[in-house]
């Protein structure tokens, strides 16, 4: 029974991750920790494995349909990996709780803006005829996303999709598909690091990955047909969830020091 429930959780995370380009880990970690009582040190690597599975299954469809921008993906990927390495290096000197609060406030701002903005930002008409602008912003934002990924254990998707869509004027669906392509590489590197330390529980990963692959296949077929406005609202809702998680995580860390 638990195996089927894990598969169902994987289907949900995979579908959502493929639709929005966030990998699905942000949904899966609280679900595994709260719903299945799985300790975080096992839930995080398992969810990262699901991010990789999601990226492979969904990106195959997006690359074939020319929805992923390979060149933009490669460029931002370099900045992300550099940011992740720097994040890993400075992790010992930075208060994780403070970073979590700042990131939580930022995602809260972005999600509220997406939900409440009355005059939406003009999107390029076509998903093939657009020119990404503002590369310095995109590259520096990806560097920050990589750093946050290493510091907080979150995927870069929730930051990179709005960055590409609003900062670089890339169509939302292309931003989502390109983010999906990118999260696989950084996720694989993170999982490898966990696996080498023996934190990867393959008994937990097996049903989750099977569910994620199914969910991502379905999600990637649906995504081109779903209206962009709907995807944006869904993304904003997931960002609210991320903001809640980050503020909780940060608050939990900061509260004892403030109390004293």
């Amino acid at each position, binding site marked *: 029974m638990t195996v089927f429930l894990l598969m169902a959780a994987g289907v949900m995370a995979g579908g959502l991750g493929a639709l929005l380009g966030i990998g699905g880990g942000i949904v899966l970690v609280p679900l595994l920790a709260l719903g299945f009582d799985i300790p975080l040190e096992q839930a995080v690597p398992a969810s990262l494995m699901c991010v990789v*599975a999601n990226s492979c299954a969904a990106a195959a469809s997006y690359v074939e349909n020319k929805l992923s921008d390979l060149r933009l993906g490669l460029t931002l990927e370099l900045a992300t990996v550099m940011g992740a*390495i720097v994040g890993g290096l400075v992790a010992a000197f930075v208060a994780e709780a403070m970073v979590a609060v700042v990131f939580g406030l930022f995602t809260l701002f972005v999600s509220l803006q997406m939900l409440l903005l009355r005059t939406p930002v003009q999107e390029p008409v076509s998903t093939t005829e657009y020119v990404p602008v503002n590369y310095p912003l995109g590259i520096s934002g990806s560097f920050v996303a990589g750093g946050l990924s290493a510091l907080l254990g979150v995927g870069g998707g929730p930051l990179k999709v709005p960055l590409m869509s609003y900062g670089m004027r890339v169509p939302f669906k292309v931003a989502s598909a390109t983010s999906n392509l990118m999260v696989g590489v950084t996720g694989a590197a993170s999982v490898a690091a966990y696996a080498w330390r023996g934190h990867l529980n393959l008994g937990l990963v097996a049903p989750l990955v099977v569910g994620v692959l199914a969910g991502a296949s379905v999600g990637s077929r649906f995504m081109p047909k779903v209206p962009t406005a709907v995807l944006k609202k869904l993304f904003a809702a997931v960002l609210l969830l991320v903001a809640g998680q980050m503020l909780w995580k940060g608050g939990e860390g900061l509260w004892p020091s403030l109390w004293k």
Partner: protein
Amino acid sequence: MNEVGPLMHGVHPSVRGAEAGPPARNAQAVALPVPEPFPEALPEALPEALDSLHDEPVTEPDARPHARRWAARASRGERWIARMLRTGAVMSGGMFVASLALELLPRDESVHVAIDLLRKGAASMLLVTPVARLAMAGTLLGLRGEWRYTAIAAGVLGLLALAVGAGFQA
């Protein structure tokens, strides 16, 4: 005289009629065609002409086949990347499903070993797939002459190797 219409030499037709005086000395240099009166039979002839346009293959200038060839090669490259990602995902998923199916069998040492092997193989395949995709994308873009992206892909792969080797969580 060419096939298009009668020529009028010397000056522009807007300032000179056909009945005007002798041609100028440099008449050949500025020879201009005079448009013939619009044929009245055109409305009847037009549909046939349009049909013949559909029948004939459209030929394009010499530069276009080269561009088309590059576009086709680019499209083939993207299909290869998609195929590789899908193969990795399907094979890994298949091995995980097989391992789950084996769990239904009565527990035995050999079954346990098979499950363990299948899961390790599936996880390894899943982790290698996006990295192989990165290498393939860099190679394909390099073959198209976009060496900048090949260098970026090589840089990402190098940094990932460094990060994993050093134990960072990139």
